[in-house]
């Protein structure tokens, strides 16, 4: 089981002939991901990744020819939202957009279209998804993961790696690790991902990593309280971030109210989540939470 992707996922790479696309698609292949197609308009008919993967001119063509059902996007920011819409239009079920720096107005429109078409989007500006030992659909280092039963869900890339590293150190493997991205508009919310982890028989617990800005962590916490049977360990980055400043992620800016780290940690605790005050506690807290469950 696991969530979203597995060894049967048939992956296409939008922007496969660009430097980022080539590099990461190669890494994905090496991890064992079933990369079946690439898309670069104007380069249809060529072969990418040392002759291993056929390139098509459009997502529609790639989907028809190879039956790819998921797509990962590495195209530059000005064209990323359109790439998402193209994939959605062609009926791709799951789209992961790695691209950082997509204009927000473009994403608002793209989000409206994918919602209408029922496409699931992860990102943009995210590290992607990895189902350990089966499918890597992203840019994370696969070798740090170990197969197991913890789901990892995070807004941040390197904090996902930190959480995975700590879990492995305390002897806990992962089912699927998922970075949903730190932009103001993202395709899949924490609640969306939590629903999948709750329903997945291979996941026994979830690490939930958020940061300052927005209300998503609070909404997730309230959902967890009402619906989640599996233990959740939480962490919020940005306790020391000054208000009004953008800390790297466009979404990581405190505008007041319940979007500070303090407020989010309080709400999460009230909702029964085991909240880590320090990032260094994630692994240990998960171990304790599993034992208590």
């Amino acid at each position, binding site marked *: 089981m696991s969530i979203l992707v597995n060894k049967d996922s048939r992956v296409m790479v939008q922007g496969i002939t660009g430097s980022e696309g080539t590099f990461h698609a190669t890494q994905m292949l090496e991890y064992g991901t079933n990369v079946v197609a690439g898309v670069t308009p104007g380069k249809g008919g060529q072969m990418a990744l040392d002759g291993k993967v056929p390139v098509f001119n459009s997502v529609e063509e790639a989907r028809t020819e190879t039956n790819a059902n998921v797509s990962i996007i590495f195209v530059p920011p000005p064209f990323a939202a359109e790439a998402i819409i193209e994939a959605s239009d062609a009926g791709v079920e799951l789209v992961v957009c790695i691209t950082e720096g997509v204009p927000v107005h473009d994403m608002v429109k793209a989000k409206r279209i994918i919602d209408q078409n029922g496409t699931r989007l992860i990102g943009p500006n995210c590290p992607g998804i990895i189902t350990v030992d089966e499918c890597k659909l992203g840019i994370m280092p696969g070798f740090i993961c170990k197969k197991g039963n913890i789901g990892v869900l995070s807004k941040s890339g390197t904090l996902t790696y*930190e959480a995975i590293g700590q879990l492995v150190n305390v002897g806990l493997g992962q089912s699927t690790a998922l970075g949903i991205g730190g932009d103001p508009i993202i395709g899949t919310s924490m609640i969306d991902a939590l629903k999948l982890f709750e329903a997945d028989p291979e996941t026994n617990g979830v690490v939930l990593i958020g940061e300052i800005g927005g209300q998503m962590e609070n909404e997730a916490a309230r959902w967890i309280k009402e619906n989640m049977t599996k233990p959740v360990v939480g962490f919020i*980055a940005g306790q020391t971030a000054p208000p009004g400043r953008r800390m790297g992620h466009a979404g990581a800016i405190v505008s007041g109210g319940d979007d500070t780290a303090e407020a989010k940690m309080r709400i999460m605790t009230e909702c029964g989540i085991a909240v880590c005050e320090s990032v260094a506690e994630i692994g240990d807290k998960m171990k304790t939470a599993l034992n208590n469950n």
Partner: protein
Amino acid sequence: MKIHEYQGKDIFKSYGIPIQDGYVIDNIDEAPATIKKVQQEFKTEAVVVKAQIHAGGRGKGGGVKYSPSTDVALENAQKMMGMKLITHQTGTEGQEVRKVYITQAFDIKQEYYCAITLDRSQTKDVFMVSSEGGVEIEKVAAETPEKIIKVWIDPLVGMKSFQARKLAFGLSLSGDAFKSAVKIFMKMYACYMGTDASIVEINPLVLTEDDQIVALDAKFNFDGNAMYRHKDIADLRDVHEEDPTELEASKYDLNYIKLDGNVGCMVNGAGLAMATMDIIKLAGGEPANFLDVGGAASAETVKNGFKIILSDDHVKAILINIFGGIVRCDRVANGVIQAVKELGLKVPVVVRLEGTNAKEAKTILSESGLAIIPANDMKDAAKKVVGAAINS
């Protein structure tokens, strides 16, 4: 990206939104002639003198002065130019006023608030108005939320007139003022979309004694990621309003924000960088900065990051925390050694490297003979760097 009020009003003007107009000066010698020009052109004796800084709350800080006569206007302009204006958004040091805007004055019957921005939880833009203009809208939102009227805009259809009418009715406007407000709201939305703004705010929008609707202020924030398609707006950037070190860091594509503490930190990834600042604080220290070296940290980025951190005299120790994914730790280690050799080891440096090629990196550092303090994990690293900062 932010801009000044007078620049925002120029944009409003180009969209046909009526503004409180005027001229801006950056040299006090131009004040007498400019005041006269505003008085003649807008047929008014009274003018308003307004400090141009990016921070909000200017009125309360003494940066907006109604001036009934030429002499008072001149006196206000002289006081304002060059002053350090302190508002709730500038911090205690204040922001130097380098430009003063002299505008026409109106007799005001009523003040309103209006703004467009993204509502993240609805994933739509929201247009908000309130009859409680001219004051801190955060307060209105917290205490009397029913006084804020909102409409959410479908991104595929855009704002529709019925929505603008709902807003104008909500402000109890009637007659020509109502018609004028509806037009202004539609134009504001066109302006928000057309400039890739992340916020367009008018506070206050006023109803004058002769029933005109006029924008007295113009606040914009733009999506930096979209500025590639708005070169004219990107050119409005005023580097004087930015921290010089942050500006320098942006030249190297480093994401740096200066803070008040004494423990410098260099991290890959924004989330991990914030978490590193947090754990420094938990260990009893105060972070001196936020610094995300990004996904492709090379020897060169590490060196530049070092330079930026060391340009802050308050820094007593540095923590380098890298979780290598695409970034290879051995390359980071070589970058650290190169930076230390070139710039000297002025303060203790604690290094924590994990992920891709971490083992090789640790060997490189320990064999370098440099007094770099290795750390095993984040907790260990935070403890060591805070200890080093106290002792150095």
